[in-house]
Each structure stands twice: as C-alpha cells, then as structure tokens.
C-alpha cells in the first residue's frame, strides 16, 4: 500500500523495523500450524477444513496471536476494525507491525522473517504487488466468497480484493472553488497548491493519479504519457506541490489540493471539515486493495479468522464508514445489509471505470521510471 507517510522516511529498512517491533511485541506461539483438532490450519482453504466457524475461532484463540502489517489506523478506518477484532477476541493479541510501509515492503518482511513467529500473518496489498508475489500466499476462500465479484478475486483465493475507491481530488473548500476538470487545476487560482500522495514511481495512489490524468486527458491506460504530460504542465504552471502529503500537511493547510483515493481524502474531513472530495465526470480510475494470507504464516488459523472477520457484513460496513467501497458492496446492497446512509455519502461513481491490467501497469511503471523525474523538474 502507499503508506508513504513521514514515519516511513525515518530510514530504517522494513525488515529491521519489523524485526524490532515484533521482537518487542511478540512472544512465542509454540503450537503454530497444528490446531487443537489436529487440523493443519496452514493448508485450510475454507472454514470447512476446521469443521465449523466456532472450530476456526477455537483454533485461532489457541494460537493467541495475529501479526498484521502495513495497516495505518487512519487508513480506510482500520483503527476501528482492529479495535473491534481485539474486543471480540480478547484472547488473540494483535501485533500491529510497521503500519506505514509499502506493499513491496510487506512481502520483504514476510521473506526476511520467514520461519520466525514475528512474520506477518496477513497482507493488505496493491494489485501490482499481489500479482507478482502469488508464491508467497496461501489460498483461502471466506464464507462470503460468492458475494465477491469475479473480477476482484484470484480464482483460487490466493488474493482477494477487500476495499477500494476512485482516484479523486480533495480540496479545501474554504480556499478554493470546486475543480470540475483537470484543466481547472492548471489555472493560476491553484498556484503552488496541488499535491500528489507520493511519487508515482513508488506509491500506488500516486500511480493511479497519473492514470486518472491519462484517461481524463483522453488517453488510454495503454500509454500513460498524457498523464505524465498533464503533471508536467502542472509543474510548468507552478501549481504542482512536491511535499510528501500526510494527514498533518492537510490539517495545517500546507497541501490544500490533493490527488488521492476518495476514501483517504474523505478521511481528512476529520481534521478539516471544509475538505471536500471530487471524483471527476467521465472516465474514472478505480483501485482495490487485496487481502492475502502468508503461506508460512506463524498463526495460520488466526490469519484465516481475520479474513472471515474482514469479509463479514459488519466489517465491510466499517470500511464503508471509512469512505472506502467494500468489495461485497453490490451483494450487500441487494441483500439490504449495507449501511444505506454511509453508502449515500460516498462521492458519486463515474459513468465509466477503468482498472489497469498487469501488462498495462508494468508498461506504465517502466514509462514513469524513465519520464517522471524529468517531467516534474
């Protein structure tokens, strides 16, 4: 994920941070892997392998620990979700490791700590990283598997979309008029005001911002050049702001206009009620994050319980509360279990939505690597 927050910049590598945090927070769990009923939790691909859901809960409680990584508490309402899990399963200690690392670093942490009881049990990953690392995942299908659209899950359950949103522009409505198109942002009114959440050669959210600029400029995802050109013009106009966007910079007004996922921009309203979110008309750019279980998870049953928990109605609604669109939203809307008030509060979805394929992502990554640094100089 693109948690390019300031803490990240402290310079410790993911592995070192994870090891240090985990050592401090985690005591051993001796009987990992083999649960009470003799079920091998590490190979279970659904709840039936444990027997009933209660058996899964019992196996997870016996493990007593759950290592999660890269879940910032102010990201898509994860704080409330983690607290609810802790409240429901007081016997399971959640070890929140390195909340601000990137998706790539999550995988590095799993590889560096493989075989240790400090390795992450579950991941929350951007699509590019998930597609590249399927050999690190264990397949698992939650009870609500059928509700998840096929386009948003790997067929065997190696990784599954969990929540997502549209690339949006957040702006401080006390200082700026609502932008209605990309070109508005090029006008002098937005001088030195427009920031991107991260560098697109590093962070998924920033990458998506260039993708959105591409399709909004009439291009297609086969070629991100129009998007790069847009940000080049933004830089020439003196409107592009290059400071790293964090909750703090938005709260202080340092970054008054921000390209970011709609649910992340929405979250800033807590600090600045005047902060509004716009999803441009026309083609929208969507992105979903993905859940995956570490193949060599030190707490395999707890990892699977966490998945069941995340895909339950209640937690899907908690993501919605954080402004994100949970993956089961359509099915839950049909079933009437979605929180209608929260759903109505989301920015209106654009008429057409695009998501890049793996090939398009890779091509765009290469192009950005060559062109981005000079385009914004």
């Amino acid at each position, binding site marked *: 994920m693109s948690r390019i927050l300031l803490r990240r910049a402290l310079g410790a590598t993911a592995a070192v941070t994870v090891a240090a945090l985990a050592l401090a927070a985690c005591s051993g769990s001796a009987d990992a892997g083999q649960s009470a009923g003799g079920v091998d939790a590490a190979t279970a691909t659904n709840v039936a392998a444990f027997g009933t859901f209660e058996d899964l809960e019992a196996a997870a409680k016996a493990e007593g620990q759950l290592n999660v990584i890269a879940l910032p508490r102010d990201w898509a309402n994860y704080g409330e979700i983690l607290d609810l899990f802790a409240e429901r399963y007081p016997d399971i200690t959640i070890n929140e490791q390195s909340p601000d*690392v990137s998706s790539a670093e999550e995988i590095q942490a799993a590889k560096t700590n493989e075989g240790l009881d400090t390795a992450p049990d579950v991941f929350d990953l951007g699509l590019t990283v998930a597609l590249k690392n399927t050999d690190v995942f264990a397949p698992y299908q939650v009870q609500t598997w059928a509700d998840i659209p096929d386009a948003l899950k790997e067929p065997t359950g190696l990784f599954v979309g969990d929540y997502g949103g549209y690339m949006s522009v957040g702006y401080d409505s006390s200082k700026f008029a609502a932008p209605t198109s990309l070109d508005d942002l090029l006008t002098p009114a937005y001088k*030195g005001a427009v920031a991107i959440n991260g*560098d697109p050669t*590093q962070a998924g959210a920033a990458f998506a911002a260039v993708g959105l600029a591409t399709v909004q400029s009439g291009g297609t995802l086969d070629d991100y050049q129009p998007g790069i050109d847009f940000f080049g013009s933004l830089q020439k106009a003196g409107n592009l702001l290059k400071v790293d966007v964090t909750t703090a910079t938005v709260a202080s007004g340092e970054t008054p206009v921000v390209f970011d996922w709609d649910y992340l921009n929405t979250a800033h309203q807590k600090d600045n009620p005047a902060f509004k979110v716009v999803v441009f008309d026309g083609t929208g750019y969507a992105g979903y994050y993905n859940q995956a279980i570490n193949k060599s998870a030190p707490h395999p049953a707890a990892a699977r319980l966490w998945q069941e928990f995340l895909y339950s109605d209640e937690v899907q609604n908690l993501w919605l509360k954080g402004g994100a669109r949970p993956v089961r939203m359509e099915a839950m809307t049909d079933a009437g279990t979605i929180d209608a008030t929260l759903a109505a509060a989301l920015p209106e979805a654009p008429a057409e939505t695009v998501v890049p394929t793996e090939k398009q992502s890779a091509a765009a990554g290469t192009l950005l690597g060559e062109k981005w640094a000079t385009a914004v100089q």
Partner: protein
Amino acid sequence: MTSSPTVGVDAEASTPTPSSTPARPARARRSFSWAWLGLTPFAAYVLLFLALPTVLAVGSGFFTKSGEFTWSNVAALGDPLVLAGFANSAGLSLVTALVGAIAGALVCYALLGTNPEGALRSSVDAAAGVLAQFGGVMLAFAFIATIGIQGVVTLLLRDTFGIDIFAGGVWLYELPGLVLPYIYFQIPLMVITFMPALSALKPQWAEANLTLGGTRASFWARIGVPVLAPAFIASLLLLFANAFSSYATAAALASQGSQIVPLQIRAALTSETVLGRENLAGALALGMIVVVGLVMALYSLVQRRAARWQA
C-alpha cells in the same frame, strides 16, 4: 631577522608536553599488550552492523533477483537519470558544505574571543552538539511549520511586510529547498569539528608575530591560514559526506522525482509500482560508497596534516 622567528617557534614547539604525548602509544605498542582486547566489542559491533550490511547491500548490486551474477545493475549507474541524481547529490552537498563550513568557521572565530569556561561558549557548544544531529523528519517539519506555504514566518512576511517568499513558485519542496535545512545542520557540525582546531591557535603565536613587527594581516597570511587550512578542508570534506548521505530530511520535503541518490535507493527498494529493482539499490549504494570513500580518503590525508597542530 630570519633567524629569530625560528627560535621562537622552536621554543614554543619543544617546551610543552603535548608534542611528546602522541609518541607514547606508539612506543607502548612495541611490547606485547592485551589492550586490543578492549576494542573487540566495538570492532564486533562495527563488523556486524556496518561492514556486513554494507557488503551484503553492495553485493546485491552484482546479482539479479534470481541470484545470477550480472553487470547490468552496475551498468545502470550510467543511466542519465542516475547520473543526474549523483550530480544533484554532489552539487547539493558541495554547496551546503561550503556555506556551512564558512559560516561555521566564522562562528568559531567569534567564539574564540570568549572565555572557554564561560556560559556563552558552553551553551553554544551544547547547542551545536544537539543541532548537528537535528536532521531528518523533525527538521523537515520544523521548516514546513516556519517557512512552508502556511508557515509562521511565511505568513508574517507576507501579511506584515508584503514579501512573498514563494512569489516565483514553491521552491522549498524542490532540490534548492533542501539547501536551507541542510545548512541548518551543517553549521553546528562545523562548529563542533572546527572549534578544537581554532582553539589550537596558540596566543603565543600571535604575540610572537606582533613582537616581530608583524601585522594582523601577516599573522593570518603566514600563520593562521596555513595552520588552519588542513583542519578547515578536513571539516569541509566531513560536511560534504554528511550531506551526501542525508536521507530523511529530503524524503519528507521533496517527495516527487527522487532527485538525489538516497531517494533513488529508496525508490528502487520500496516501490510498489515499478517492481523488481531491489538489486539496482545495491549498485546505487556502491556508487555512493565510492564517492564517500574518495572523500574520506582525502579527509584522512588532510586530517593527518591537521592533527600536527592540534596536540
């Protein structure tokens, strides 16, 4: 006239004890001693936490992700973007080192007139010690809060004096914007490293110069500058290396485009959009080590000369 200065200098150099102290450890080394044992914990620490990671990191630059030997990562050091990164890093380091060294030396000179045991000298010493280490995210945030777009100073200048420091664009979050924060930690570092050299300028030398009819100018031209030059250059090189390896301040301020090498290493290691470039980071690290290695080699050469006067 020609013979008398030599007498004076010789008399100064030979009478005090300091000149004989450095010789003592050398003499002691000749007889067998267990003294090296005391160094073992430190040596082990350096080996484990500095040498080993360095070797592993640099080594990774010579292999592909799947573990085969390759020159391609090292060859990528010739890429125009990477070269631009090295040029930016070197330029930024040089500018901030020069400004830091000159300003720091002037501060030291001003301090020279104060009582070495006095409150002023010790508070400046203490402040320099703290501020030299005040880099990174805290420093970046301090600058955002003071001279950011909504910074206290920015707003004060704009609203009270009508001066808009960002009239020509927001330069704080670009490469030039890094100069001010870097200088902020370079000057105190200069004070720490250069003060001992300056204090070693013995008042007797100035007295000798005056006694022999020299002027203030001739003191600096014939004595002060030649004696201080090696220490000054050594400090300058240290400041260069310090800026060259700085990372966190830049990461928090200039988020777009990875314009200096440490940020390019970050990008190669942690990118979630351009994957599979972890080994390029090793090659970049190798490039940095070569640059810093050269600087440090120069430093130790110069330092050896500077040490003569610091006894």
